[in-house]
């Protein structure tokens, strides 16, 4: 191995492994990556040195067990730059749907015959809830382009551009018919961060928010629009409380309508 190359690590916490595929699905770029950086930890691909000092650590997955909490602190200690990849690491992930749910311990008991063997923190939380994060890449999943372009910038010492503009902007640029206006579908595009390529509208369906909240997202206004379109409070809540249910302002708007539903 060339010792002068920058060292990188890829760590996994609670997740589906889909964001690590940004590396493993990169094809030829996966092979050339090894000429630009030395991979020292990436268990899914065959490197296991979780405590090795690195220049950049990529982190997939949310923190949901006491053991994860110890591990993420060690990752932070070992890395000069820590980058979260994906909705789990950046916002707690889909599994954050258990946060604030009174009966989540009963859920464990429903699924596992011996719940006493299951070690779990009360909430699934993003990496930034526990340690300082230098760059957050949103997406469920993140794309190869997104991750490799951020890595390329970091290797050159440039701060990566991390656009916070909504799907709507990209959707308009792509020339798709607006599914919200023309089909009255409850599209999350106006409040969701872009990066997917406005895929759902291209398929004639409403965006479901998998890249998390855009910058300055006016969720209250969009929720109000959904209400005028005839959605009930529970349906509105579910639009916001899905892939990134723990990310504000999705969480606030979602909970507001959930409470309305209970009243």
């Amino acid at each position: 191995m060339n010792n002068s190359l920058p060292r990188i690590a890829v760590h996994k916490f609670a997740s589906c492994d889909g964001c690590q595929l940004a590396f493993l699905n990169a094809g030829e770029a996966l092979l050339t990556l090894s000429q630009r950086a030395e991979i020292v930890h990436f268990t899914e691909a065959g490197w296991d040195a979780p405590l090795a000092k690195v220049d950049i650590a990529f982190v997939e997955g949310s923190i949901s067990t006491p053991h994860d909490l110890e591990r993420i602190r060690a990752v932070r200690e070992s890395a000069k730059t820590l980058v979260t990849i994906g909705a789990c690491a950046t916002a707690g992930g889909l599994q954050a749907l258990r946060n604030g749910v009174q009966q989540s311990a009963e859920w464990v008991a429903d699924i596992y015959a011996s719940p006493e063997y299951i070690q779990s923190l009360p909430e699934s939380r993003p990496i930034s809830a526990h340690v300082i994060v230098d760059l957050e890449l949103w997406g469920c999943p993140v794309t190869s382009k997104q991750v490799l372009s951020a890595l390329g910038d970091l290797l050159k010492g440039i701060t990566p551009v991390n656009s916070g503009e909504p799907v709507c902007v990209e959707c308009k640029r792509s020339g798709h018919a607006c599914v919200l206006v023309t089909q009255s579908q409850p599209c999350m595009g106006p409040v969701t961060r872009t990066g997917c390529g406005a895929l759902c509208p291209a398929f004639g369906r409403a965006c479901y928010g998998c890249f998390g909240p855009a910058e300055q997202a006016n969720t209250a206004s969009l929720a109000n629009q959904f209400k005028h379109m005839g959605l009930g409070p529970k349906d509105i809540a579910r639009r916001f409380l899905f892939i990134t249910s723990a990310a504000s302002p999705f969480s606030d708007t979602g909970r507001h309508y959930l409470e309305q539903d209970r009243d």
Partner: protein
Amino acid sequence: MTERSFNVNIPVLTRVEGEGALDLSIEKGQISELRLRIFEPPRLFEKFLEGRSYMEVPDMVARICGICPVAYQMSATQALENILGLQPGPWLSAMRRLFYCGEWIESHSMHIHLLAAPDFLGFSNAIDLAGKYPDIVRRGLRLQEAGNAIIRLLGGRSVHPVGVRVGGFWRAPSTSDVASLLEELQTLLPEAEALVQWTATLPLPDGQQDFESVSLGNAGEYPMNQGRIVSSHGLDIAIADFEKEFSESHVPHSTALHCHHQGQDYLVGPLARMNLNFSTLPDSTHKLAIATGISFPSANVFHSIVARALELHLAMSEAIRLLQGYEPSDSPYQQGTPRTGIGFGATEAPRGLLWHRYELDETGSIVSARIVPPTSQNQARMEADLRTSLNHFGLDKPEAQLRQHAETVIRNYDPCISCATHFLKLKIQHI
């Protein structure tokens, strides 16, 4: 022979779905304890599904696995359509098979090249493997990308596709996209043939074992999206009867449930499918299989990698056939009307049988969900295999070799990548 007593601990297994480890204790030359620990944090998906609309299910269950989201979407849509009374027509059945071909190609190629092959050729990862065999690894990456391209055609993206809905696909692919993908796959087909031949030349260990193979079957074709549940011990049941024959139990050392058939471990995945459905292979794949010199059904579990390569070839051939016959549809999906009921879905994920059961209320909300993934079905089999294989390998071998062999055995099952099996760190305790 010295009768040593020691422990082999693999605290983090890589290249499987989720996080896992292996604890092995050898006392006086005998295995006294062997536990494949899966400690992937529980994510409670079955509970999150409760109360959600049936229309949200395909997007939600995809998130269970980034490597095989298509499988989760296909089992779920089948089960839900079963409740709504929707029957997929010929166009939709063909497109779903095409979609599944994409996932088999992507997942199988990734497993063969990035996860399993380094074991058999003495490397610890695919990048190092590529240093010596660049053409082999590049071929693998190209095939993997071809699988991803098929998924993108129908799903928009290969991880957590957005194109799927209950009742069909949100949109039909354009004929121009189909034409360019078809051309690409036709160019790559010879590479899939070469891959099969190459896997058959790998120095695979001898692993003759007595096990029951379970897969979908009696489908009139090599099974992906439909069929009955059949086994090498004569089982032949409707998918709705799965719970009568198979039971899951929770063992203390695992967050994955162990599944047994009538109290016994069993095998799911490429080798089980090949063993049970060999006669349904299309001619070109069948010829390649014969040329490998391996006769299926095979009792050598290490033939899984060859079965995987054959399935990749089958999926390429099938994808080409389906794309050649492609005609766009004005109605890529059927609309369902919610109603109360219970429905079942079973399809063949790259790693094996993936069984779903859902109950809906009259508004279309999920009342309950049960999902039995392939890795939980293979878990008991993997433990049984490890006992047999390590004894056969020789418990008197150096610990590093034992560890490497144990890892190779585990990885051979391709326990879904987020499940972890690679780094066996030895902690030796002489008792």
